[in-house]
């Protein structure tokens, strides 16, 4: 298995906190991996260790069979030899050169102009990074990283510097750009929506440890762990219908009573009582068309593949 990133390393950050990452990513299966977990769980530290910006205390990192770090053999490749592009949270564009010069910083002018074109930045080429919007800065940073032809792309909370409307718009665009770039990527996020929208593969990190990894669609439970599991259904995967008998490909139908309808901009969050609480996220328009009101009887429809199992202990 050559096309893998294997990371088994430890770094103590304080007396009480140690990041201990045990991760094996199948790069061919997972163009975009999401490293998901709450703030302060050590995601950024792991990303920095992969980039070579932080030196682990022990362990090894092997990328496509080449050792990037090996404590036992005293190997610690500097960042520039790993060729792992790093996208910082605030993009870290060089303030003194123009957008075009930023993208061409570690690439030929031809490569840079091709990427400027592909990312729709040609019109901004002569501007300074401070004179463009956050979303544009993100595209410049991504173009700059791809121009250096990295073997792996590491993105630290790439959407968190954007305002809320831009963020939801950019989410899918970012995934499209990452796939078009053709470089395996690891994206750090603490936002579940973002994790699901961006990733093919997910690694969940809690308190400095990788708790589970797997494809985003089939969130798996740690094989070694026993104990209660949670069945998680994403609110946006729940559809609501009034017609109980209508034929549908989705086999899971649950009768429920509307407990509350909470408008959230273009969307509406519908809380259902199906014997347990189920939350559905529907567009405000469908909520209006279905005339959803408190106390109404409806049925919720869920595809089997939208049901994720998670160990009760790993996700709070």
């Amino acid at each position, binding site marked *: 298995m050559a096309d893998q990133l294997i990371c088994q390393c430890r770094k103590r950050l304080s007396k009480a906190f140690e990041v201990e990452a045990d991760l094996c990513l199948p790069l061919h299966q997972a163009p975009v991996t999401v490293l998901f977990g709450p703030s302060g769980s050590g995601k950024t530290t792991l990303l920095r260790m992969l*980039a*070579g*910006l932080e030196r682990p205390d022990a362990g090894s990192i092997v990328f496509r069979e080449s050792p990037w770090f090996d404590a036992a053999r005293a190997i610690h490749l*500097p*960042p*520039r030899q790993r*060729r*792992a*592009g*790093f996208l*910082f949270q*605030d993009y*870290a564009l*060089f*303030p*003194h050169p123009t957008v075009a010069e930023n993208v061409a*910083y*570690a690439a030929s002018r031809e490569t840079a102009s091709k990427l400027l074109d592909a990312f729709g930045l040609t019109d901004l080429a002569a501007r300074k990074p*401070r004179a463009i919007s956050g979303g544009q800065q993100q595209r410049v940073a991504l173009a*700059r*990283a791809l121009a*250096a032809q990295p073997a792996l792309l590491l993105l630290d909370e790439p959407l968190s510097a954007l305002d809320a409307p831009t963020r939801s718009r950019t989410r899918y665009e970012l995934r499209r750009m990452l796939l078009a770039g053709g470089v395996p990527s690891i994206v750090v996020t603490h936002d579940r929506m973002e994790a699901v929208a961006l990733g093919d593969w997910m690694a969940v990190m809690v308190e400095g440890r990788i708790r589970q990894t797997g494809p985003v669609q089939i969130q798996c439970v740690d094989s070694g762990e026993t104990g209660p599991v949670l069945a998680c259904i994403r609110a946006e995967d729940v559809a609501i219908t009034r017609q109980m008998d209508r034929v549908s490909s989705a086999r899971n139908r649950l009768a429920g009573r509307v407990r509350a309808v909470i408008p959230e901009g273009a969307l509406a969050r519908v809380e259902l009582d199906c014997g347990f609480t189920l939350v559905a996220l529907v567009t405000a328009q469908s909520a209006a068309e279905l005339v959803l009101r408190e106390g109404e009887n409806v049925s919720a429809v869920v595809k089997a593949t939208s049901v994720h199992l998670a160990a009760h202990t790993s996700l709070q």
Partner: protein
Amino acid sequence: MDWQAIWLSVRLAASTTAILLALGLPIAYWLTFSPRRWKFLVEALVALPLVLPPTVLGFYLLLAMGPRSPLGALYARLTGGMLPFSFQGLLLASVLYSFPFTVQPVAAAFAGVDRKLIEASWCLGVSRAATFRRVVVPLSLPGIATGAILSFAHTLGEFGVVLMVGGNISGVTRTVSISIYDSVQALNYGAAWATSLFLLCVSFTVLALTYALQRRIWAVWPIN
């Protein structure tokens, strides 16, 4: 006015500044970015001329440069000349004496460069040396300019160290400040007046230029 002394001082200050920039930038870089625990010792050593009386520094330098010291002996073997009471000796003393005036503003400027910009450059496959040249130095230009100009002005006005190491040889080691002191000793107030005024004007102009220049650079590249 003692034009010979002024010319000598300007030459000494310019040479000192050039050497200090060449030496000071790498040392400031090391002081800013090295993870070594004992670097505070080097920091203290660099800052020493700020608090040490020039006579103390001059005295030790005189001993270190003397023909019986290893440094003096080596210099004599290489050039056939002697360091004390020569322009080269004066230059060496000036470099040491003005060291903190270059290193401290430059190190402060380096420390002000966003660490992530440096890391971003490394991750783009650019070497440490090239990153220093292409990111750290351009973003620290105001600090580097300040360091250079302060060193120049400080060397122009130095007195104690020159007196100890250089003495008072016309055209070789008699700098502006020594010349003024000489004039006053000889009760030649007219000459002292003229040279002092000249030094005052030069110093003021240089400093005013520095601050004006800094404001402009900062306006173009705001540092955070």
